[in-house]
């Protein structure tokens, strides 16, 4: 069985990458299972997706614990523990990193004895969302590494998975997928079908008896004042509410009490102030303001997003 795991951020096309690879395997006549796994469903949050492919029906299910190939579309994830990029990695694992650095640098940095391959990216990437075609590149590279997918099949898989998108987008993805495919030419077939686990010798699970603990310890209590304030949830926003002071009548309560995130404070002069660190951009305030004083502006068009750190 082939076991492949893709890691990236929401918006970088990891689900699509896994589906392109899954469909390519399927078109080559293999049994396939592919699935994304999300945490927070938003742009920028770590997500991963996985693909199993085999000549016989697949009974394994769920997250791949010990992948043969780990693909890291965004190297900034390596240091994010929640992303679990290195989970189940052994010295038998291949890692394919989209990075501006060298493979040896990553080997050293991770103290990793397995093989590292790289997909070079331009050095100066400021906005990681520029990497939105990286998924296609990764899918193409993975297809080549497995050695049993032809470029014609890869092309068909890309077209099938992107059906319905504008043809310019499909062509761009196709170009990127084939670029990844070509880059991996010299490593073609390095990912082999791995045998199944043996029941003769296996790692015995270190089960424990869960100890009884009093409710003062074991109740799931979250203290919002310290956790949510420190968490800049404003990163989720795609639309930004902006108050037009000329039109604001300082009614002082409508927008602030309507905000589901408590992100609008009223200052001493009755001016509403939006806390962009925590505003999620739901635009409730825009809807409720009777003076139509709040506008919605696409986040990427906002000139001040750098300064406000959001």
């Amino acid at each position: 069985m082939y076991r492949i795991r893709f890691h990236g951020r929401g918006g970088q096309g990891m689900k699509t990458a896994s589906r392109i690879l899954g469909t390519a395997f399927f078109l080559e006549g293999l049994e396939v299972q592919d699935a994304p796994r999300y945490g927070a469903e938003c742009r920028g949050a770590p997500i991963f997706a996985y693909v199993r492919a085999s000549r016989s029906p697949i009974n394994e299910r769920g997250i791949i614990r010990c992948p043969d190939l780990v693909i890291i579309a965004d190297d900034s994830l390596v240091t994010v523990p929640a992303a679990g990029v290195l989970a189940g990695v052994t010295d038998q694992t291949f890692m394919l990193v989209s990075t501006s650095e060298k493979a040896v640098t990553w080997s050293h940095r991770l103290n990793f004895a397995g093989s590292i391959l790289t997909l070079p990216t331009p050095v100066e990437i400021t906005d990681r969302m520029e990497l939105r075609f990286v998924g296609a590149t990764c899918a193409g590279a993975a297809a080549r590494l497995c050695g049993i997918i032809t470029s014609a099949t890869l092309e068909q898989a890309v077209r099938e998975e992107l059906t319905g998108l504008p043809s310019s987008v499909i062509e761009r993805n196709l170009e990127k997928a084939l670029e990844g495919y070509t880059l991996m030419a010299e490593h073609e077939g390095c990912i082999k079908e791995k045998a199944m686990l043996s029941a003769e010798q296996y790692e015995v699970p270190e089960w424990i008896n869960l100890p009884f603990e009093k409710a003062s310890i074991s109740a799931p209590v979250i203290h919002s004042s310290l956790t949510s304030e420190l968490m800049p949830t404003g990163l989720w926003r795609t639309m930004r509410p902006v108050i037009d002071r000329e039109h604001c009548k300082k009614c002082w309560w409508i927008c602030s009490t309507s905000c589901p995130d408590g992100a609008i404070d009223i200052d001493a002069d009755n001016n509403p102030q939006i806390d962009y660190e925590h505003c999620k951009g739901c635009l409730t305030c825009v809807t409720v303001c009777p003076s139509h004083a709040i506008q919605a502006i696409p986040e990427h068009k906002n000139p001040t997003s750098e300064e406000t750190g959001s």
Partner: protein
Amino acid sequence: MTRKLLTGNGAAAWGARLAVVDYIPAFPITPQTEIIENLENWIDNEQMPARMVTLESEHSMITAAGAAAATGVRVFSATSSQGLLYAMEMLYTVAGWRAPFVLVNVSRGLSAPITLEPDHNDIMAARDSGFLQIHCADCQEVLDSVLIAYRLGEDERVRLPVIVNLDGFYLSFTREPVEIPDPQAVAHFLPPYDPENIRFRASTPISQAVAVLGGTPYSYFRYESHLAAQKALEVYDEITAEFAEEFGRPREALESYRTEDAEYLFFQIGSFATKAREAVDRLRESGWAIGLLRPRLFRPLPEKHIRQALAGKKGVAVIDQNLAAGRGGVLYSELASVLFGHANMPGILTSFIGGLGGRDISTEEYFEMAMVTRQAVTDGEAPSPRLLYTETELREVQKLQAIANMERIELGAKP
């Protein structure tokens, strides 16, 4: 017939489309929403002649489903977790109306704490409601089960609503190859619904919900529902025999995987049971006589089939992906009551709770459950029920507790 990659949600939607349903009351909830989105899309593009209505809650959604079913049309709906529980009052009510429809539940653990990932506490909460229950192990089975569920619920001997259950994430968002049967073949297996005397009309009011006092009529109606649910077993066997003939896939009430010569068995429902299958294959390679029993049909529970399959076996490892607080695993209690007092039944049942809130169960853990069960047979005594939980996991939780504790102190609590 086409074979393509579909998610469990996609397969459920295809089931509804091929069943040519008339009416779909809907309310969104993760991880079920994709089912409704698929159907909505097909309806918009005139690929499906159904009417969809979005309701303001699951409670209303199930009421609408039952009411529409009472007019004699074919109804489909879907929900998950908190949504199913919010509809609980109406689940019992509409089942009592004896107007059949199909509800897909995408299993997800219940709050609190809240999660998106699967376990079976939601569907277990509905086990006594009067809905029949079919549990799926893979995406193909989801599509097939929706078709079978309509035949089953609409059968004149049954006339009860049916829940088709699939696990969130492990099936709902997982693509697998699925055969989509030809509409003509489906129409042959599942002809248009003949509602007999079910015919509720606005202009001719009747009551589906009469008040009865004194207990005598009440007992009659409730027990008749129970008898219908029991009758459904024999009807299910007939229908799946026809299904196998039409589509070549046996969908027996009880899946028996490599059980013939087995001494030990895993007993489990849902998609995690495919992991048990995998473990069975591996264990057999190293000489174990072991198999898997998986009830597809959970309501009614195929008791006779289970006893037949377990006659002469030594030990059963029961894996519950649910937890009845203060009691333990639901499947374990159910199996014990099925076996008790019958001759030649296995003397040892071991009980494992695992996969709560989407917690994975590894192949190694299946190996170990087999070992524990074999040891229990040797000792002649079953160990206490076990939660599948490792030392590493406890350390992870203790780390979170340490942080929470620091916060409590900062907030002025006594350490």
